[in-house]
């Protein structure tokens, strides 16, 4: 099975974070914002070309680039 990441989700789709495969220091930053294993997230919006993503996690809205969105494995 192929791994699914945030960048594969649709707008308003929900998922659970399985693993953050980003390198440091981005990884720690994502952790600190609440994107950790087991966290529930929801895609709120993305820009037209899916360049930038707006996701909701733990009552916090977070803007990410596609590169970072690809580094969060979800289920």
């Amino acid at each position, binding site marked *: 099975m192929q791994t699914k990441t945030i960048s594969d989700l649709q707008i308003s789709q929900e998922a659970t974070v399985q693993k953050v495969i980003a390198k440091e220091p981005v990884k720690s930053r994502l952790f600190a914002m609440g994107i950790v294993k087991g966290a529930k997230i929801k895609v709120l919006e993305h820009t037209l070309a899916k360049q930038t993503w707006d996701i909701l996690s733990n009552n916090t809205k977070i*803007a990410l680039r596609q590169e970072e969105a690809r580094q969060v494995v979800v289920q």
Partner: protein
Amino acid sequence: MNKQIKVAIVGQPNVGKSSLINAMSNAKLHVGNFTGVTVEKKEVFVKSDLFDIKMTDLPGIYALNAYTPEETVAKNFLLNEQYDIILNVVDANVLSRNLMLTLQLLDMHKKMILVVNMIDEIEAKKGSIDAKKLSILLGIPVILTSAKTSQGIDEINKTIIQTYRAKQNDNKIYYTQKVEERIKELTKVLQKSPHFKDKDYARFIAIRLIDKDENVYKIIHDLPIFIEAHNVLEKIYSSLTAELDEDSTVDILSNERVAIAHNLHIETVNIKEESKNLNEKIDNLLIHPILGLPIFLFFMWALFQLTFVLGNYPMNIIGDIFTYTATTLADILPNGTVNSALTQGIIPAISAVVMFLPNILILFFGLNLLEQTGYMSRAAYLMDGFLKRFGLQGKAFVPLVSGFGCTVPAYMAARTLKNPKDRIITMLVLGFMSCGARLPVYILLIGAFFPTHDAGNVLFAIYISGAILGLIFAKILRVVLFKGEPEPFVMEMPPYRLPSYKALYMDLWYKTKMFLKKAGTFIALAALGIWFLSTYPHNSALEKSYEIKIQHTKNIQIKKQLQNELSAKSLEESYMGHIGKFIEPVFKPLGFDWRMSVSVIAGLAAKEVVVSTMATLYSVGNASNTSKGLIQKVRENVSFNSAIALLIIIMIYSPCVAAMSTFYAEIPQWAWRAFYTIYPNVVAWLFAYGVYRLLSAVGH
């Protein structure tokens, strides 16, 4: 003297640290609804009966593993400075995420107070937080506050004093057994060094090392126990990750903190699941994939329209009042030095600056709304993809937009960019974002040369083309000098908040005061200097010869003409005339006369000085027109093509000395400082020349 209690204000970004300090004191720390408002530590004193409390407001940090330069400021303070108490502020809305930092801070084993801020927003949602229980679970005092309604503010003061007097309590966070064993093992090794005799401090360092904190790693790097500690640490890294099946010990500690924070949240927070609220409805529109950007551009356009159109009415009135004062004074006061210093030097100069205060305030009002409402980070989100093409990232938007207000804080705001390359590129192109002080020059020239109904659009076009030029240069710099990818973009977007009218009003009032103060002191002095240089030395031979001529004519028309000739000739013979003649060749190709040239150079002191200098020079050189407004004088003395060239120069050339010294303070490398000092001026001249020639060629 009272005893001093030193308190460090620590917390994640945008939780209301600066707002709380403002509520506790009469400080006016900068507050805004986006992350990274505070980028430098600031001290505020609060006096009470027995103690003076010294509070240090720190930039927000997400975790102790500092990430950006401004977070490093906070971390360095926490690790290296002397303070008695950590006041940890958390946002009640996102308690469990904020508690992750709290848990890291508790590892430090210092006296600590937890302030749960924004409780008004929880209460509005009919929720509650059990402070007592949280206090028992964490082992430190917990206060529920709202910087907005002032709830709980007095209690902070009391608790600080109580905590200062009380003994340090044993507020340790315990991790799971496997992790604790490793912490103990490493602590033992560290304690062999005289540096870490204190057991709690050794434990903190051990935890930071297992958390792969590079700054702390550097601390032990030079100690004799380094080899042993390093070996133990390596062993811990490999055994822990293997046993718990994780990539890194960072993940392990993070997972543990998440679990603890989550439990604390469940035990103490009582709040119903939120339904889809107004916030998201607004976002659906404002960051809509297709509509988002056009809406943003519309807002900017509307702001510049308002800046010109609304500001125009008071502008004319203020201008008239000053002109009237000058003419009246000129008649009342005896002829002489004081008379002409006031009516030709200082008053026109101050008038030329103060006239534009309404415009500047409208611009600042718009920027303030952008900062306070939470739209700033949405705009950054929208612009990210666009900025990426120019080798920048969304977060650079914040300093870039702040640059429309004032370049000095904008340079500071670039600290929120992690990657040094991104930061330096952003700072190098920040000057292209026209600051509020350049607004007077634009409005003056636009007012003189464009019909009123176009003026707002022209103003918008100036700001936008400045910004686009800046982006193009960012791209060039990225390709030529700073190869590599821009830094990753991960940014929190806070909920929308209604700005408080009081704060808005206070901010604008403060800006007005500062502006008037600057006009009354700095600008007035500069104007006096310019007036002096342009009035002296007197050439008595010249004056005599003209006086005789004037006396001999009866025709009033000719008399006036002779008087004007005399003023113009005297001005040319003055010190300023000579200085002007000396620099004139540089600006000659742009069609500037020496007075414009002098004004441009004087603008390096402060951009408002461009208009004030023009006002002085055009009134000194013209004996009979004190009654004419500055706009009129400019229209008579400056050609359209030169006016456009002047606009371009002002748009691009070096910012004021205050901004330049901020850049020098932020960027230590001499090569960059030199580059920064030279290239905008060269670019400005070349562009101005190109456009000037183009306009002449098409027959303007």
